[in-house]
Structures are given as structure tokens and as C-alpha cells.
């Protein structure tokens, strides 16, 4: 039985490392920032999740103590990853649309008809005005 558990722990560790590597590889290879957001926010949290599950199992099997406090980190990361991705995307859109000093990557999808892409808390009306005036 411990062999099976060891195998499971090793598999979880390897999965976590592989997913972290894949996420960072995507961060380097993907062409524009909106695509680059996908690599880290999905794959790296999955990688950390694998490592945390492996740590829980490992200390339960070999350390003789059963505790779920690794789940705290996993919960915190799963809660904060979408928020930080949203903030980074908003900063990118703001610098691209309002300040116009960002790279010209892949074109953005069209905004809804009544407003532009909102970045500054005004519902995107400033960016929309700017688009129409151009």
C-alpha cells in the first residue's frame, strides 16, 4: 500500500512540475498579452495545486501527521488568480487604448455597441469617443 501511495505522490509532483513548465513556456511563446494571460493563470495554478496535494499526502503518509493546511494556499491562489489576471488585463487595455503607448498586438474583439472597453471606471465612454474620433 505505501508503494501505491508513493507512486501517487510522485505522479502528483511530476504533474505539478510539468504544468508549471507548460504554463511558463506558454508565457514565452504566445504572441500577445491577452493570449499570454491564459498560460500562467490556468496551468501554473494547476501545477501549484498538484504540488500542494502531493505535500499533503506526503506528510500524511511519511510524516505521521494529517493536516489540510496546504489547502489554505490552494484556496488563496484559486481565489486571487482571476483577480490578478483581471487587473493585469485592465492595465494593458488602459495603456493600449487610453495612453496609446502599448504594442499593437492582435486586434481586440469588438466592444459592445453602447460603450468601449472599460478601463478607467467611466464605462469606457472615453475610449469609445476616442475610437469614433479617429
Amino acid at each position, binding site marked *: 500500500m505505501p508503494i501505491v501511495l508513493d507512486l501517487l505522490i510522485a505522479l502528483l509532483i511530476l504533474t*505539478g512540475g510539468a504544468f508549471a513548465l507548460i504554463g511558463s513556456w506558454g508565457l514565452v511563446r504566445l504572441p500577445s498579452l491577452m493570449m499570454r494571460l491564459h498560460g500562467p493563470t490556468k496551468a501554473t*495554478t494547476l501545477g501549484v495545486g498538484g*504540488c500542494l496535494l502531493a505535500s499533503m499526502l506526503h506528510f500524511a503518509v511519511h510524516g505521521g501527521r494529517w493536516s489540510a493546511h496546504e489547502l489554505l494556499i490552494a484556496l488563496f491562489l484559486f481565489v486571487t488568480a482571476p483577480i490578478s489576471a483581471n*487587473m*493585469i488585463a485592465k492595465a494593458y487595455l488602459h495603456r493600449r487604448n487610453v495612453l496609446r503607448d502599448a504594442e499593437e498586438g492582435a486586434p481586440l474583439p469588438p466592444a459592445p455597441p453602447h460603450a468601449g472597453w472599460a478601463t478607467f471606471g467611466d464605462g469606457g465612454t472615453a475610449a469609445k469617443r476616442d475610437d469614433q474620433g479617429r
Partner: protein
Amino acid sequence: MIEVAVTIALGCLGLAMALNLVRLLRGPTAADRILALDTMVINAIAFIILFGIGQMSAISFEAALLLAMVGFVGTVAYSKFLLRGDIVE
């Protein structure tokens, strides 16, 4: 078996952090650099946890938890600074 797996995974994570460093240095936008730093913090968390597994020490858990919190606050502060030109208004 677990030692081998931990060694391989630590190598993977080191390579991943080197790739993040490439993105951090290349840019091209400021948001890219923030994203690279955020990813690097998450990889460092996984690295610390794997190191704790390898050393059989539970001390590294606190370091990982603190790094998770500080990393998130740092990412939000960077993005907020780019958006508003100020962090605490």
C-alpha cells in the same frame, strides 16, 4: 522514488522560472512584466513546497503562504499603479 520525482520537478520549476525571466526582460509592455513577475511568484511557491517535501520539513509551509499573500498584493499594486498612477487613493 519521491526523491527522484522531487528532483525532476525542481528542475522543471527552475527552467520555468528562467522562462519567466526571459519574458520579464523582453517585455514588451509593462503588463507583460507584471504577468511575468506574478507567474514567477507562483512558481516560487511551488518550488518552496517541493523543497519542503524533499527536506521533510513543515517550516516551508509558512514561507509559501506568506509568499502567496505578498505576491498577490504586489501584483494588484503594480496594476493599480499603471491604471491610476497611484496605489492608495
